[in-house]
């Protein structure tokens, strides 16, 4: 036996490799029943987009939050804001970007206090948390209806198997949307930023909520004679979650509105700043908004 001692380590290593490979293969098999957090990045984007559209229709924040948990983003609010920005930059639907931004803002405003219905959903084997999602957060009240929409001919056997149910008169939901109360943002600061290190004509916007926390995903509209552009706060989280900026052109006067309900701030132009030799140079502007 002692003559075989040198084989002990190879046997252990071979066993370890075999065990690791077996685990990998078993995981591959389980991958068929994947959770949303395993989705490819672009599919996760589609999941978030569908989620935001759904939230826009139902205003069910608990359910939206529970669904977001399934994606496993470390910071769901930042992920939503970043996606809104990416979609705007790619010229995608503004409505969709807005849905994402609104969801981000509402989640931010609601804070972490909401129950995470699907907190266990990412761990497999603990039952179907995702399945509990729709029934766990009833935001839609139902009233019975006698009208049953007729079905067309079922194209496949699978559809035919549920046709009976589809034809059965069902209670139709009556929506009771819960509007998120949103007071308009107020301009609490407008300062000329005079610094030669600053980009000329830089318009900086910082948006705070009523708890003095910076708010990401807030829709900002800047308009000028013959044009308009939308952007959102939170694009530069390294500066601040509620920060956004824009470069103003020379000789153009802008008006700016924060969120859809905000009062437009008009007459915004590049400020002129005097330097130490009485020469003028172009500075920037800083606007600060807060929810009352």
């Amino acid at each position: 036996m002692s003559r075989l001692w040198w084989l002990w380590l190879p046997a252990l290593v071979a066993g370890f490799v075999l065990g690791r490979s077996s685990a990998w293969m078993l995981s591959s098999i389980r991958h068929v029943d994947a959770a949303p957090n395993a989705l490819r990045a672009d599919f996760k984007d589609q999941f978030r987009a569908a989620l935001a559209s759904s939230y826009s229709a139902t205003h069910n924040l608990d359910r939206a939050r529970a669904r977001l948990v399934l994606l496993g983003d470390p910071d769901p609010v930042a992920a939503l804001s970043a996606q809104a920005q990416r979609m705007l930059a790619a010229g995608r639907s503004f409505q969709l970007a807005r849905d994402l931004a609104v969801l981000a803002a509402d989640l931010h405003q609601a804070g972490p206090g909401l129950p995470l219905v699907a907190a266990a959903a990412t761990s497999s084997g603990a039952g179907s948390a995702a399945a509990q999602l729709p029934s766990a957060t009833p935001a839609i009240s139902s009233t019975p209806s006698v009208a049953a929409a007729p079905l067309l001919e079922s194209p496949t056997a699978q559809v035919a198997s549920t046709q009976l149910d589809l034809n059965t008169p069902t209670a139709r939901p009556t929506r009771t949307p819960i509007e998120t109360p949103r007071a308009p943002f107020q301009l609490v600061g407008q300062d000329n930023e005079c610094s030669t290190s600053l980009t000329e004509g830089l318009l900086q916007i910082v948006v705070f909520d009523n708890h003095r926390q910076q708010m990401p995903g807030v829709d900002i509209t800047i308009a000028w004679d013959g044009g308009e552009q939308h952007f959102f706060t939170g694009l530069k989280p390294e500066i601040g979650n509620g920060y956004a900026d824009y470069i103003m052109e020379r000789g153009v006067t802008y008006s700016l509105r924060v969120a859809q309900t905000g009062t437009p701030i008009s007459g915004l132009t590049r400020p002129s700043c005097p330097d130490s030799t009485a020469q003028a140079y172009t500075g920037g502007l800083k606007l600060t908004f807060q929810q009352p």
Partner: protein
Amino acid sequence: MLRGLPLLLLFIIGIALGLIYSWAVNPVNLVDAAPASLRADYRADYVLMIAESFHANHDAGLARQELAIFGVQAPATICASALETAIQVGYSQADRSLIQELARAMQADSPIATPAGARP
């Protein structure tokens, strides 16, 4: 024969260590999954999200586009599968109604094959 027993034991211990390492210490994380590989209840919830939007905007084209995430399956079939899952896992009646509404719209929106030579 007993001389090989320690080796066999070490080999088995190695397998056990490999499994423990892969499942507990450093789990194998397979990512980049396609939506078609989602578990049935997650798929049903995704369809419900689309159904909730559809109930508000009645945009069948958009719903069809969103359902295309699942690949080549017909949208009506995807909705029917989702509805079956919703019934199995106990979705509320209101949620099932939303999926049914979407399923009906997807079926109504499906091109119906006309036999060759048949008059429309």
